[in-house]
């Protein structure tokens, strides 16, 4: 199965390990993520004012590429567009919904795009976690080489996978898609009441101290429930929860670092994929000592 894939800026820079491990995991499950031959930044955040149409141009342009891929037979009658980054997912999907529902606005956007063909409103934006759910957790379990049963995992959703309701991949208040995935990989998924609390997002640019406070609260909550490692699907959540631990540790001497990784990294580990593909060396707080202690890695 070939599905058009939109990487976004961060998957090609700071989150290469997220992309690489996801593509490898998809391949194990018979899914080829075919990168859009041409793509542009989606704008990261959804434009929230009613009169601001121009910032929807970037997301819609990427959706036109999916139409082109079908015309060029790069994929066969496949109008789903898969994303890995939660922020791209949210932005692309919300713009898509707005222009599917509003014909008049779609006409306006189409009239602004000069080089592209018209967007027909036929693309469906999906997150990779939804593809995994569709494949079926029993099929995912079949691929396990190293069950994650020695790990206590906290799953962190953040905002963009769940909210607002019309774009969420699961119930906005009681999601369990990540829990189900990791249980199917054999892991013990810990209780984590703060799993959908905002990490502060882009406030990390202007006010890293208050983002570090949120990181402290969120990760302390995970640790109170005995989590040893946290998984996420958003490169900005990953940055805030992982890299901002540096500030957390300088403020709270009792705080012990906890690794935060992408869900696909642990999936790759469970599938027995090469350790380089898992990409654990690019996380800020390394998961390698924990994984070594639990016997997941051979001592070099």
């Amino acid at each position, binding site marked *: 199965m070939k599905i058009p894939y939109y990487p976004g800026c*961060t998957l090609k820079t*700071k989150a290469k390990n997220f992309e690489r491990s996801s593509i490898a995991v998809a391949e194990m499950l018979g899914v080829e993520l075919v990168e859009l031959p041409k793509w542009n930044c989606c704008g990261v955040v959804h434009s929230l*004012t009613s009169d*601001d149409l121009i910032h929807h141009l970037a997301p819609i342009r990427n959706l036109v590429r999916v139409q082109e891929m079908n015309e060029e037979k790069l994929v066969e009658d496949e109008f789903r567009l898969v994303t890995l980054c939660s922020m791209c997912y949210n932005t692309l999907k919300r713009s898509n919904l707005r222009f599917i529902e509003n014909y008049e606005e779609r006409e306006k956007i189409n009239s602004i795009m000069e080089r592209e063909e018209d967007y027909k409103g036929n693309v469906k934006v999906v997150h990779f976690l939804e593809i995994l759910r569709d494949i079926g957790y029993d099929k995912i379990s079949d691929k396990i080489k190293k069950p994650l049963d020695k790990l206590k995992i906290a799953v962190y959703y953040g905002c963009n996978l769940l909210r607002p309701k019309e774009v969420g991949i699961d119930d906005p208040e009681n999601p369990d898609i990540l829990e189900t995935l990791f249980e199917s990989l054999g892991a013990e998924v810990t209780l984590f009441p703060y799993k959908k609390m905002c990490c*502060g*997002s882009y406030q*990390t640019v*202007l006010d890293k101290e208050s983002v570090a406070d949120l990181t402290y609260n969120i990760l302390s909550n995970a640790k109170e429930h005995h989590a040893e490692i946290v998984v996420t699907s958003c490169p900005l959540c990953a940055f805030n929860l992982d890299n901002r631990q540096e500030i957390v540790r300088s403020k709270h001497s009792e705080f012990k670092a906890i690794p935060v990784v992408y869900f696909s990294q642990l999936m790759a580990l469970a599938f027995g994929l090469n350790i380089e593909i898992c990409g654990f060396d690019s996380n800020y707080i390394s998961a390698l000592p924990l994984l070594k202690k639990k016997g997941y890695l051979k001592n070099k």
Partner: protein
Amino acid sequence: MSKMIDLSKEADEFLKKIEELSGEKITSCIQCGICSGSCPMINEMDLTPAQIMLMTLLGQKEELLKSKSIWICASCYTCTVRCPRELDLSKVAEALRQVKLRLSIDRIDINKMDKADLEELPPIALVSAFRKFTG
């Protein structure tokens, strides 16, 4: 005996402007406070989300535009999914920010940013901050 609050023409115009920009019917807010109780950034705010709604309703432009809160809201939509009136407060905060940004009053000066920060931050953090903090 009922009491009426008379809004000045200016205050009423401001309310209408924010309603138009946000697309939200601010007058339907019932001040239940679920938004303030749900907000993960409340500790950093000078005005609570519920206060922002009430002050917008009363057209208190000056106080709102100088508040820190309108910049602190990171559109996490926690209040949005919980509001019993189905109001989207992130759109109201965006509309208030836009009033300032459209006057070319930016919240962030890219030229003054620390070089080490620029190298460390992921592109999604920078692009989203520039989208939210510059006009």
